[in-house]
């Protein structure tokens, strides 16, 4: 349904202010933020703490309301959709979170977590056992893991289940919000490989959020740098990271050890 050449997901002018306590003015988390995402590409969003990148993810997923601005996916209003539109959005745009320790309900098995997700999918084969096994397979986990509880899995395995859960509705866009940041280095790379494989196989578009510049550079086609709720710089990966224009981007690049070479 997407017209060739126009972005799959676009947003502009997004604003969000968290209310302050006791009459104080709250914290401005998003200040006139906009972005564009094309089908099958990865947009990396990099920023430090307080940059607003996680707030952006939540606003796009309607987990927290925006104060202003627009965001559309395939023509649908992402911020205030109608009931049927909301369902379409849920099936089209999904999210994977950061913390492997809380990504799954400790009282429910992998099977229950995935079934909860497949129930929302559009296709009739959604809830069957085969579908669940396929999902696990696609993230590199074996069938016995279906009956495992979260505490029986390692951090990396839990993140894989979180990815499988996001894939259960067959989305076109996946927002990865710092989803490898809490993992050990040796596990990070295998999860990143998984994300790349899935993108190739399923034609997913990613919004890849991280504070880690090297990871973002590795995963993204285009990069957006955020600071204190504003977009500081945007462009292709090569442009932003090799020929940075904004002083903050340069400062960020300079402070990452080992990024100077290669």
């Amino acid at each position: 349904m997407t017209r060739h050449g126009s972005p799959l997901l676009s947003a502009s002018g997004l604003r969000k202010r968290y209310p302050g306590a006791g009459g104080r003015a709250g914290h401005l988390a998003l200040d006139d933020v906009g972005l564009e995402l094309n089908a099958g590409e990865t947009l990396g969003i990099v920023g430090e703490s307080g940059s607003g990148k996680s707030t952006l993810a939540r606003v796009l997923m309607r987990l927290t309301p925006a104060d202003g601005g627009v965001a559309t996916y395939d023509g649908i209003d992402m911020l205030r959709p109608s009931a049927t539109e909301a369902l379409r959005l849920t099936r089209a745009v999904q999210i994977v979170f950061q913390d492997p320790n809380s990504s799954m309900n400790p009282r429910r098995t992998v099977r229950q977590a995935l079934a909860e997700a497949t129930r929302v999918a559009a296709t009739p084969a959604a809830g069957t056992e085969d579908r669940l096994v396929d999902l696990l397979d696609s993230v590199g986990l074996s069938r016995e893991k279906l009956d495992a509880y979260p505490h029986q899995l390692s951090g990396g395995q839990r993140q894989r289940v979180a990815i499988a859960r996001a894939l259960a509705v067959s989305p076109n866009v996946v927002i990865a919000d710092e989803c490898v940041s809490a993992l050990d280095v040796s596990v990070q790379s295998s999860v990143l490989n998984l994300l790349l494989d899935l993108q190739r196989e399923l034609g997913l578009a990613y919004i890849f959020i991280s504070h880690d510049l090297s990871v973002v550079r590795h995963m993204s086609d285009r990069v957006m740098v955020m600071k204190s709720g504003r977009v500081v710089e945007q462009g292709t990966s090569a442009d932003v990271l090799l020929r940075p224009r904004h002083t903050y981007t340069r400062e960020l690049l300079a402070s990452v050890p080992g990024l100077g070479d290669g």
Partner: protein
Amino acid sequence: MSAAVDIGRPVRAGAQSGVARILRGTPRWMLVTVALFVLAGIAGLFLMWSPDYSKLVFRQSLRNAYAAPLTKGTLLGADQLGRAVEYRLLAGLGISLLCAAAVTLIATTLGLFMGLLGSFFGRTADRVVTTVIDVTWAYPTILLAVVIAGIQGPGVSTVIWALGLTLWSALARIVRAQVLVLREQDYVLAARALGYGRVYISLRHLVPNLVPVCILMATLFVALTIIAEAGLSFIGLGAQSPTPSLGKTLAEGFSFASSSPWPLVFGSLTIIGLVTTLNALGDHLRDTLDPKGTIPLPRLGIIRPPAPALAAPDEARTVALAARDVSVAISRPSGDVPVLTSLSLALSQNRTLGIVGESGSGKSVAARALLGLLPAGLVQSGGSVLWQGRDIAALDAEALRRERGRFIALVFQDARASVDPLYTVGAQIAETLQAHFPQDSAAARQATLGMLARVGLADPAYFDRYPHQLSGGQMQRAALAAALVLRPRVLIADEPTTGLDATTQKKIVSLVRELRRELGMTVIWISHDLDLVSEIADDIAVMYAGQVAETGAVADVLRAPSHPYTRGLIESRPGRGAAPKTRLPAIAGNVPEPADWPATCRFLPRCGQALAACSMVQPALDGAHGRQVRCHNPVARQAETVA
């Protein structure tokens, strides 16, 4: 807040537990005692309600009044109306337990409902619920019982209503606090992202995770009800004759104690026994559910008896810090679990050593072992640590205290947790100074201000700041100041920049470099970040699963790693030459937990170049001084055989 040390993956047993698991861990005597009481209560109710046996409970016989135990056909004596105490107690127990069950049901349901309503369904609901809780709270339970007794007369139902309507607020408060945390958990957010509504999430995700706290409060409610019912019966508002209850038996026993103490004695024993068991059960549940509950005894120094090791005299001059074959284990009743095995290091003066490892590598434990102060629960099981050539096990407590801080200092990963939140940072730095060099407070203040300025907190206002008022980067600087104000010879920095922004991280790293030069220190920098360590360290030690895998000069190790793990770590980092959006070489498998360490090579399951020897004997740390590797088939030798 406890001195957490990274010892691997989150606990298997304990933290995540279902109801069955909780029960399995409970001491048998508690479960048996509670079960006995419940059975006795059920028996009592049966006696009371069956037409054939109820006369045992109700029939009065003034002839037998005040009978002593084991007389007139009774076991425990008779009360003022000649009824056998044992039957009155059984029936009374049944009524009291029934009453407690009813109260617990009401209070738990209401508490859960209101707690959820307040914390998960919007701010207006929250305000209403909070106000209701506060109104309920303003009025003591017993007085509410009086009012209800006034309305509908005294009796067991009065007790149930009064207690049910006041106890729920305690649970509601706790539920509300927990849900505020739970609702930010990723699995709740994921369910919301899938479009599930608040009611579904409450029922399917929140309530199941609130069950443990509800069970805990339930034991508390039962105990409280039993005691409160006794009190209310005493002032005449509880069970009315002829209905028995524990409280009624006790109250009657009290009134007629001068004629016969036995009803009071046996009634008291029953109630005290039951409530004590319930409270003990509640304690046990609290310990199981909250990992902080079981706090091991804090230890103050080296545990094992000193076996002083001697260092060669010239070594003492060049080697600031050394570890010889140090092993550390978690002390458990079921047996010690090793977390660090055979650590041997020698740190040359004025060099910076970087220790690199992932979670479960034992790097933080190694730091603590080098300081001679292990976190609670850990025990040194072997080896010795030498400070400037002297074995610290030979030092007495006072000598050790003096050396700590002056010779060697530690900067913690969580800087904010390493200071007392109730005192200003300036006061605490000055206190550190005063503990070693007593001086008047003005001088200490001056020295502190100087040190704060040296770490980049030049504004004197920082002296009077509390820890929570500083940002992450500022707190880390303050912690550095606290560590360095005594000018130690050795500084150990345990992941001091993890969690900080990259820009702040860079500033802290250059600060430490400057200070090292200026003060002539030896530094150990512990991190999981290979790139960071390569920037700051001269030498590097790579740790894996409680052992040192490889050591050497940083440039050497990174250019030509010998251990397959080191090579895997280096190659799996994005940004190291690998083209964007291509697969990275990754190390297969997971870091093993301490309990699963094999007696052979610990890296074996993940190694791509294993030999037969690897599965037979554990490799030892091998190599020339300064460049060592623990591997049967290190990479360099591989290249030789190929060439």
